[in-house]
C-alpha cells in the first residue's frame, strides 16, 4: 500500500510559498487580512486535533488562546523580554494549563467534558477580567510591542517593508512551522491512536490504549498550539483583552472548523480563510455580521455538514470516480 499522491504533496510548503507575496500586492489591508487568517487558522487547526482527530468537543479552547496571548504580552510589555522566548513561553504556559485542566476534563465524557472545558475557560476569563494588577482587568493590556524586527533590514526585498508587513512574515514563518509539526503529529502513530479513540474509545482500550492518557496528551498539544496562536494574535492585535477568553471566542474556531470541514487536516485553515474573507466582505456592507454568520452556519449544518473541504472532496470523488 503506497500513500496516495495527494498526501505526498508538501502542502504546508506550497501554502507557505503562495502566501509569501501578499505584502507586495500593494495594500496594507491585504497584509492585515492575511495575517489575521494565518494566525487564526492555527487556532482552528489546533482545535481540530481534539475535534476531528480525537473526537473531543471542547467549548473552552479560548482559555489556552488567551493564556498564550497574556503570557507573551506580559513578558514582552512588562518585563521587556525578546519576542521569540516570549512566544515559546506563551505556548508552554498554555500547554501547562491545558495539562492541569485537561487532567480533570478527560475523566469526563461527552457533554460533561464539554461543560468542564467551558467552566475552566470561564475561570480563566474571570481572572483576566478582574485581576487588574496583572492582566489589566477589563481594559486588558493595550500597546503590546511588535517584536524587534530590525534584523530584517539586511534581507533583500523585505528589508524596506512596513513593520506590519515584516510581522506578517514572522507570523507566516512561525505558523508554517507549527503546521508542519501538527501535520507530522496527525500522521504519526500517536495521531493514528487518536483517530482510533475518536472512532471507538471502548475498543481502543482493548487494543491496549490508555484512552485518558492519550486524550490528555492531545489536549495538551492542542492547548500549546492554541497558545502559540494566541500569542501571535495579541501582538498582531496590538493588545490582549479579556474577550480573548470569553466563551464566544471558543465558538470561533469551532465554526471555522465546521465551515472548512473537520474530517480534513486543512479543513480548519480553509474555514478560517473563508470566514475571515467573508467577514471582510460583509462588514463593508452591513454591521450585522453575526446575523449573516448565523445564517451561513445554519445552511452549512443542514446542507453541507462536511464543510467546504468535505463537500469538495465528495464532488471530486463523484466526478473522478472512486479512486480520485
Amino acid at each position: 500500500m503506497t500513500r496516495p499522491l495527494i498526501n505526498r504533496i508538501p502542502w504546508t510548503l506550497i501554502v507557505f510559498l503562495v502566501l509569501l507575496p501578499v505584502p507586495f500586492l500593494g495594500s496594507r489591508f491585504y497584509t492585515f487580512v492575511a495575517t489575521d487568517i494565518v494566525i487564526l487558522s492555527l487556532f482552528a487547526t489546533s482545535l481540530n486535533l481534539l475535534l476531528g482527530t480525537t473526537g473531543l468537543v471542547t467549548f473552552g479552547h479560548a482559555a489556552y488562546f488567551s493564556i498564550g496571548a497574556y503570557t507573551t504580552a506580559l513578558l514582552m510589555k512588562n518585563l521587556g523580554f525578546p519576542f521569540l522566548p516570549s512566544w515559546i513561553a506563551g505556548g508552554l504556559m498554555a500547554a501547562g494549563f491545558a495539562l492541569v485542566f485537561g487532567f480533570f476534563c478527560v475523566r469526563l465524557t461527552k457533554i460533561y467534558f464539554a461543560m468542564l472545558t467551558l467552566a475552566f475557560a470561564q475561570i480563566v476569563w474571570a481572572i483576566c477580567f478582574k485581576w487588574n494588577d496583572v492582566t489589566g482587568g477589563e481594559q486588558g493590556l493595550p500597546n503590546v510591542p511588535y517584536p524587534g524586527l530590525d534584523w530584517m533590514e539586511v534581507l533583500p526585498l523585505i528589508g524596506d517593508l512596513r513593520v506590519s508587513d515584516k510581522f506578517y512574515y514572522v507570523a507566516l514563518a512561525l505558523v508554517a512551522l507549527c503546521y508542519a509539526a501538527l501535520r507530522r503529529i496527525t500522521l504519526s502513530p500517536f495521531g493514528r491512536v487518536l483517530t482510533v479513540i475518536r472512532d471507538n474509545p471502548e475498543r481502543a482500550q482493548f487494543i491496549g490504549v490508555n484512552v485518558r492518557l492519550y486524550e490528555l496528551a492531545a489536549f495538551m498539544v492542542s492547548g500549546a498550539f492554541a497558545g502559540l496562536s494566541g500569542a501571535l494574535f495579541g501582538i498582531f492585535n496590538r493588545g490582549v483583552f479579556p474577550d480573548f477568553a470569553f466563551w464566544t471566542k471558543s465558538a470561533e474556531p469551532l465554526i471555522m472548523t465546521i465551515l472548512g470541514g473537520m474530517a480534513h487536516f486543512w479543513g480548519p485553515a480553509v474555514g478560517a480563510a473563508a470566514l475571515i474573507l467573508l467577514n471582510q466582505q460583509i462588514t463593508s456592507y452591513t454591521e450585522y455580521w453575526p446575523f449573516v454568520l448565523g445564517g451561513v452556519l445554519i445552511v452549512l449544518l443542514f446542507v453541507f455538514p462536511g464543510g467546504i473541504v468535505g463537500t469538495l472532496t465528495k464532488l471530486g470523488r463523484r466526478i473522478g470516480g472512486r479512486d480520485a
Partner: protein
Amino acid sequence: MEPSFLFGQFLGGLTAAMFLFLIASGLSLIFGVLRVLNFAHGSFYMLGAYLAFQFVQWVGPRTEGFWLAALGAACGIAVLGGLVERLLLRHLYGREELYQLLFTYALVLILGDVAKITWGTGQLSVSRPPSLEGSLNLLGVIVPHYNLFIILLGPTIALIFWFVLQRTSVGRIVRAAAQDREMLSSLGANVGMVYTGMFMVGSFLAGLGGALVTPTQSIVPGMDVAIIVEAFIVVVIGGLGSFWGTFLGALIFGQVLSFGILIFPRFSIFAVSALMAVILIVRPWGLLGRPLR
C-alpha cells in the same frame, strides 16, 4: 457587619436566584427531555425582555398592563421556540451533538442581531407595575414589593412544575422521556409532540424570566450571552436535567454571588465558575442529578 446588611445581601441573592431559576429550569427541562444544550436559551430570555418592553409601550407604561405584556412576551417566545424546534432543530436530532450545539449557537448570533435591528443598541427600561411599586421594611432592610413578588414566584412555579411532573399523565410522559427515550414511544406518546411541547415550555420560562426581569434591570444587547453561562452554571451545580437540582443550584448561585462579593470583592464571578468546575470534577451529574447512561 450588621445583621440587617447580611440579611439584605441574602434577599438580594434570593431575588437573583429566583430569576435564574426561571431561566435555568427551562434550560434544564429541554436538556432533560431532548438532550440538547440550548445556547439560544439566553437569547430567548433577552427577546422576552425586549418583547415585554414593546408590549408595555403598546398597553401603556406604568399600568397593570405590565402583567399582560409579560405574559404576552412569554407566550411569544414559546411560539418562537416551538417554530425553531419544529422547523429546524428536529432535523438535527440524529446527528452528532456538536451540530445541535452549533445550530443553537447560530440562533444566538441571529437573534442577537434581530434584537439590535429592531430595538437598537441603547439601554431600554420598563417600570414596575403600580401595584408593586412600593416597598416594605423587613427586619431593617428596604425590600421592593416587586422583589418580594419574584422571591415568592420562584417557589410557586417550582411547586406547579413539581405537581405537573409528579401527578399528571403529561408529567409521567415527560419523566419517562427524560429517563428513557425508547420507553416513550412504547407508552403510546407522540414523541414529536412531546419534544415540541417541552421546547415550548422551556422557551416560555426563558421568555417569562426575561419579561419579569425588565423592571429590575435595563435591557441591553449582550444580556443573552451573559445569562446563558450563568444558567449553565446553575444547571450543572444542580444536575443537568434535574428539576429540584436546578432550584437548589439557583439558590446556591445567588448566595455565592451575593456573599462572594463581600468576601472577595473582585472574584465573585470567579467563585461561581470555580464552583461549577469543582462540581463537575467531583460529581459530574450535579448535586441532585443522576448519572447519564
